[in-house]
């Protein structure tokens, strides 16, 4: 009799633990949480980008590619990616001249003759897909978010167009799409990367100045790039957890 009771208590305990874990797991199973698109595991990726400043030739092919891929309006204010030309006077490094005519959609015009030698280079810009995005933190309705695979996205059906996030982004990566009056930004070509393709800008960049990387994939060349090069994110003092690393970035770049 005594043995039976011990056995009963043991079994009851096991059952309780099993039932408990099943109860915890059930909502996740029901929501199909891990699987959003067939063949794509949302939590098996962690996307970022590396940019080699010394390879950028300012041709603007990335800008044209992005606008064609994502149906972005052709005005300079509405650009998900753009290229900036820096002209730095070595005697006044704190005040670089920066321009980006038409977001570099047509490349860059000839700057004309200079009276003295100036340091000059191109810097491609896009959403940095920060891990701790200031833009996400200020959204009052949960219309923008960091996805489980590390991409900062916008829910256009939820966005009010209040523009808080545009002010919060330290990199100037957001704008209002005048067609919908909702905010728009780089999605890291979410519709492409979830299907095994690279982003449109990386696909068309003729010099390989930018490369998409999956930080959760140990075989991705991004690990080698980050290991072998001295890299920097934009505005590291803002602790945004930016996942866009620049190689060869000059201190004058903001």
């Amino acid at each position, binding site marked *: 009799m005594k043995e039976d009771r011990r056995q009963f208590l043991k079994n009851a305990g096991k059952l309780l633990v099993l039932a408990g874990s099943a109860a915890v797991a059930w909502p996740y199973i029901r*929501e199909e*949480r891990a699987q*959003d*698109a067939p063949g*794509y595991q*949302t939590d098996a990726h962690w996307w970022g980008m590396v940019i080699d400043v*010394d*390879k*950028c*030739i*300012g*041709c*603007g*092919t990335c800008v044209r*590619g992005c606008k*064609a*891929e*994502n149906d972005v309006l052709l005005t300079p204010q509405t650009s998900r990616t753009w290229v900036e*030309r*820096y*002209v730095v006077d070595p005697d006044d490094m704190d005040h670089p001249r920066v321009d980006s005519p038409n977001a570099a959609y047509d*490349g*860059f015009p*000839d*700057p004309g003759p*200079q009276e003295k030698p*100036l340091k*000059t*280079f*191109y810097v491609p810009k896009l959403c940095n897909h920060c891990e701790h995005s200031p833009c996400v933190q200020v959204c009052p309705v*949960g*219309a*923008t*978010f*960091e*996805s*489980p695979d590390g991409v900062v*996205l*916008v*829910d*256009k*059906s*939820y966005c009010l167009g209040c523009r808080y996030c545009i002010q919060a982004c330290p990199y100037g990566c957001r704008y209002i799409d005048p067609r919908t009056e909702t905010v728009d930004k780089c*999605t890291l070509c*979410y*519709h*492409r990367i*979830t*299907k095994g*393709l*690279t982003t*449109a800008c990386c*696909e*068309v*960049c*003729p*010099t*390989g100045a930018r490369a998409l990387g999956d930080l959760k994939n140990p075989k991705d060349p991004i690990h080698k790039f980050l290991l072998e090069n001295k890299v920097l994110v934009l505005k590291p003092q803002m602790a945004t957890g930016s996942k866009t690393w620049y190689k060869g970035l000059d201190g004058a770049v903001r």
Partner: protein
Amino acid sequence: MKYRFGDYQHVLRMAGIFALGTTAFFVFRAVMVPKDFGVYGHYRAGALKDNADRQIQYAGHAACVDCHSEIQQMRSGGKHAGIGCESCHGPLARHAAGQMSGAPEKPNNRDTCLRCHTARPSKPAGFPQIIPADHAREGACTACHPAHNPKV
């Protein structure tokens, strides 16, 4: 005026209104908040699918090479070997999917080249650049430099 313990009707009325308001709030909230809000975080989980469901415009290099292997052969080892086909040829996902009738338009063989190869002081020093006015005023670049495997 004598205080009477039985005078609590006004409190009940207030409590009733409060209970009704609270119920109305939770009912309204349950109706308005989408079912998938908060599955991953403070946002609608369906927004991931919305973002992933866009139409692709650039087929990607691998899709081009699938059919045009002879061009890939021609390019290999050359200075343009690393460039995606659609960098010059434009977005051709519909062509790759067989939804486009006829051959896609060929890129302009002067403007396309000059977009990258026009000399600018901001370009990296090692990049091959020309001043069009000095190098060749007009004509197709491809007359001397075959686009898929250019010789300098």
